[in-house]
């Protein structure tokens, strides 16, 4: 497994750069990972998505349906792709410290 150093701490990540241990996540981690997604600075809109994803994950132990993310954040899917170019199930989940959603998606 690869490891990345963010905010002075080491984190284990998988081959795609997703954190292996959700519990280690801090806002600094998201800021550190943002660059790998081509994001310069995290805006309030980014945080809105990230915080929603984390809240849902803490409750249900899985990433929320894409439609629900749009509904709950009030962003269109297009807007979310503008925020996270690889989409809600990849870039956004990565920054939120969630494991990479896989399946037929």
């Amino acid at each position, binding site marked *: 497994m690869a490891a990345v150093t963010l905010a002075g701490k080491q984190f284990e990540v998988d081959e795609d750069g997703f954190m292996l241990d959700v519990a280690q996540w801090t806002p600094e981690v998201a800021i550190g990972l943002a660059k790998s997604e081509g994001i310069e600075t995290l805006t309030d809109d980014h945080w809105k998505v990230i915080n929603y994803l984390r809240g849902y994950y803490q409750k249900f*132990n899985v990433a929320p349906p894409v439609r*629900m993310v749009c509904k709950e954040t009030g962003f269109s899917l297009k807007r979310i792709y503008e925020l996270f170019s690889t989409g809600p199930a990849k870039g956004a989940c990565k920054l939120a410290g969630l494991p990479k*959603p*896989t399946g037929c998606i």
Partner: protein
Amino acid sequence: MEIPQLHPDACLGVQAHRAKKELLAPLGLPPEMPPDWREKALCKFDELLKQRRSLSLYLDICVRCGACADKCPFFLGTGDPKNMPVARAELLRKVYRRHFTVAGKVAGSLAAGEELTDTVLQEWFTYFYQCSECRRCAVFCPFGVDTAEITMAAREVMASIGVAPKYVTEVIKKAHETGNNIGIPEAAWIDSCRFLEEELKEQTGLDIKVPVNQAGAEVLLVPPSADVFANTDTMMGYARFFHAVGISWTTSSYASEAANFGMFLNYDQLKKVNRRMLDAAGQLGVKRLVMGECGHAWRAAQAFMDTLNGPVDFLEPPCPEHILELAARYIRAGRLKLNKSANDGLTVTYHDPCNLARAGGLLEEPREILRAVVNDFREMPADTIREKTFCCGAGAGLLTDELMPTRMKGAKPRMEAFRTTGATHLAVPCAICKAQFPVAFKHYGVDAQVVGVMDLLGKAIVL
């Protein structure tokens, strides 16, 4: 489509991430490659040769005529000669000849036999995960040699020595743990279905149910879990349809996945994953089993289920039924009120998922539905549809980011065929295709959208 120049080893570097012990062990596979992996692999190979005529016969009779060579989307897209079906099979066949035939044992490399070495194993792991088991080659083979059978056997041999992709094994593990590929636990499944009910209420003003674990319902619908996670319009399409025809139905949080990634790994997992939906149907006491919009799920359920886990005598025939068969049946009987103009402004063409067309015989029903719900429906060129359909480029465990270069090249024939239609929407009843095509559209600069067949039907139903 133009036949590409040969680019030897063009795809040799594109490999799936390997599964590690935490994914291998739960599936009963060796947590790491045993020191005597070569003997173990040959032993498994021998076992499969004795168990599957499709393997031993197809390894024996190929005459390398090359009829299949230019039929594979992965060869057409990459130009890598080892992606020609005949050459892909030769990767296994050369080891077969060396170790299991008289000619190879006597004449060795003169009979084109080759030892199973680490290099050969690497080639296997590369090229048998650049085959989507789509079976297009088999349609054109004079002996019906089915490269999917060769690929499945090669993958099974590799799995037996702990060589498997992370993506496929992780998905199967999640299917065992949560009932679905995405890993949606029961509480989230219920919550998501409630959410979709609210959405439907907002859209229609009606109380349209998306039921979960409803004992005694008439139909158990098994959708790909992606229909709840990403393709929610498809899920709401099912709900609108059942509501309109008045069939009581339910999903199951225990068997919340139609897809069967066991098919992409080995027989043992194919059987185990398939078992879940039957158990759920039994527990819920439903009368019928209906499959959602998923390609290989249809193959596993329609062609294999009764053999693997049957006899399935407690469910009414046709068992299973595809949601598109059921919907087409109701349309034919005039029992659905449809308003085609709900889909006006859309120019729609249809992509036959490989497993619906070549392994499930579902060719007419989707077209019947689309003609009934869309005013502007057109077909792609004849040699790219129905049983000659091109794979989306991501089937059989290829739908993972690290294989993106191969996936995009494999999508090329389909993209070219799509372009000829001038369609704005590509209707496709398969979750893998639905995940692959938007990426491919972007890659090839095609301005179009992907929809499910049930999405379009759902919108056209007058409730």
